[in-house]
């Protein structure tokens, strides 16, 4: 068939290009703009070159926050992915249980971040919170305002409660797409429960798991609202993640230059890590 070449086609993608330009490209460029200049207000700008980047990359504050982020994301993935798979495997495949489970699973996802934060902030309070009070009565010393470990546990449990459902729903979608014949064949081949998981369910869930891991990684790496509401980055700096630090710097201290430089570094880190995840998880597809 003869292909027709027609440059009018560009007009069809024009709206999207304009939208992306305004929503992403231009804001990003203003950040780049700030990152290489110094300003004292009054719209006065001085060329700063790579000074802000040097400052950020040489500050202990940045590296500590980055370490916290990496640790947090690692813990989140290590908890939510296996837990999500486990729950998805045990969800009913047919009957009245399906819609009930799906709705229950979707509930946490519908709650706004800051509300989740507030819920847990109150829930965990030692004076009036159900959790905090109960633990205190049981004699367990739990106080997320004073104890860094307790603050971390609170933030992590909160994130697991909020987002494991996403992993569950994605895995469940992967699982229900497996035809019965696979399970029947596995029975005939005498496969164990583990083999069925390892050789049928896991490979079939791989694609959705890739999406789940990427989404959960990116989201957890950008964590802001919940720790901001619950701990405000404390106690001390123990839950000050990159995003919280960034906001402190930009809005609190009004250091626009360093904040912009940090944003770009932050963005590049997420980009790099996402690319690594993606490459690693899709590499086994490429070999066949």
């Amino acid at each position, binding site marked *: 068939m003869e292909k027709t070449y027609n440059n009018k086609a560009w007009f069809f993608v024009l709206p999207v290009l304009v939208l992306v330009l305004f929503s992403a490209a231009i804001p990003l460029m203003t950040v780049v703009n700030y990152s290489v200049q110094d300003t004292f207000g009054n719209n006065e700008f001085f060329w700063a070159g790579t000074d802000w980047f040097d400052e950020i990359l040489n500050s202990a504050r940045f590296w500590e926050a980055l370490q916290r982020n990496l640790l947090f994301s690692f813990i989140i993935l290590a908890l939510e992915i296996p837990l999500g798979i486990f729950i998805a495997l045990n969800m009913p495949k047919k009957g009245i249980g399906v819609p009930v489970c799906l709705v229950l699973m979707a509930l946490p996802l519908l709650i706004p971040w800051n509300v989740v934060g507030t819920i847990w902030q109150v829930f965990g309070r030692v004076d009036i919170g159900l959790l905090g009070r109960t633990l205190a009565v049981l004699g367990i010393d739990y106080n997320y305002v004073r104890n860094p470990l307790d603050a971390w546990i609170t933030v992590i449990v909160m994130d697991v409660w909020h987002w494991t459902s996403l992993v569950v729903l994605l895995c469940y979608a992967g699982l229900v797409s497996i035809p019965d014949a696979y399970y029947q064949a596995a029975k005939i081949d005498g*496969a164990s429960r583990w083999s069925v998981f390892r050789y049928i369910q896991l490979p079939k869930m791989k694609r959705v798991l890739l999406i789940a891991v990427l989404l959960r990684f990116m989201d957890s790496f950008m964590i802001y609202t919940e720790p901001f509401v619950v701990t405000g980055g404390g106690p001390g700096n123990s839950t000050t993640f990159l995003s919280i630090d960034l906001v402190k710097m930009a809005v609190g201290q009004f250091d626009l230059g360093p904040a912009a430089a940090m944003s770009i570094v932050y963005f590049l880190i997420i980009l790099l890590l996402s690319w690594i995840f993606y490459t690693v998880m899709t590499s086994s597809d490429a070999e066949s």
Partner: protein
Amino acid sequence: MARITLDHIRHAYGPNPVSDSDYALREVHHEWKDGGAYALLGPSGCGKTTLLNIISGLLQPSHGRILFDGRDVTDLSTQARNIAQVFQFPVIYDTMTVYDNLAFPLRNRGVDEADVDRRVRDMLQIIDLADWAKRKARGLTADQKQKISLGRGLVRNDVNAILFDEPLTVIDPHMKWVLRSQLKRLHKQFGFTMVYVTHDQTEALTFADKVVVMYEGQIVQIGTPAELFETPRHTFVGYFIGSPGMNVIPARLDGSSVTLGSQRLDLASAPTAAEGDRIELGIRPEFIRLGREGMPVTIRRIEDIGRRKIVRADFEGQPIAIVADEDAEIPAEAHVRFEPQGINIYANSWRIGGEA
């Protein structure tokens, strides 16, 4: 390898079956001999897959027992029954190599690795995939995948039976012939009891020693392809097998003669039918001769299908099909004669007699 006994098997998917129509499978009571090749043939929803799943143990029958070599296996799991099954869509373990796919059922059963290796290598030769052993199974074509499914069954050389559930559905037409002949060769070589579900009559007839025709949850006839063609026990078999199917003409039975509209035919013997039975005469298009003499017909249409012609005609107000040779002359004032050996008489759709 085993003899399969189906002892009064009935199955309903619903919880409280009352009437016959609640049963996906009505009373099946047969014995299939060791090493036989049986094809289960019937339209969609006739219960053939239900029967297959009952044999494989994926389904528990509501009533009846199933025996392998006289041993009751009704309550045994699929795995314990030691059967193999090939499904409509090829089931392979994507992430494993071809070799590991074939080794999987053996390893699951704790066969020692030296033995696994020997048997898998043999099987790779048999299914012509030796060059692919180290490849991931994912990238293979549908027919190669289906061969792996088959190989996974055959590699356990002690299976009681191999069940096929429309295994060639997703295979390209030209590969169907190749696979089918390979399968036939394997069956001769290994002598396994084979049950093959299909809705394709060519597949069933070329494949099996015995064809089991199913209709509305029951087995209507078990026979060789020739038996099914010449003496269909039920009018359904008559028109399901053969192309075009058997002509079934309403008739009146009077001792040893039948009346078709205004025509009268004499039979060699007198079939016995009860009062009020619906009597029909069945004759295959191949057994009707066109000519200048006999009973008058009105020709409606002639379809030339190459070596033969199919003549569509009206006979006593009934549409019938007639098969004529390619160069046969079609007279203007057409008449037909029924060859006596092709005549079957049916009462309420079941065969009660005929000339053959």
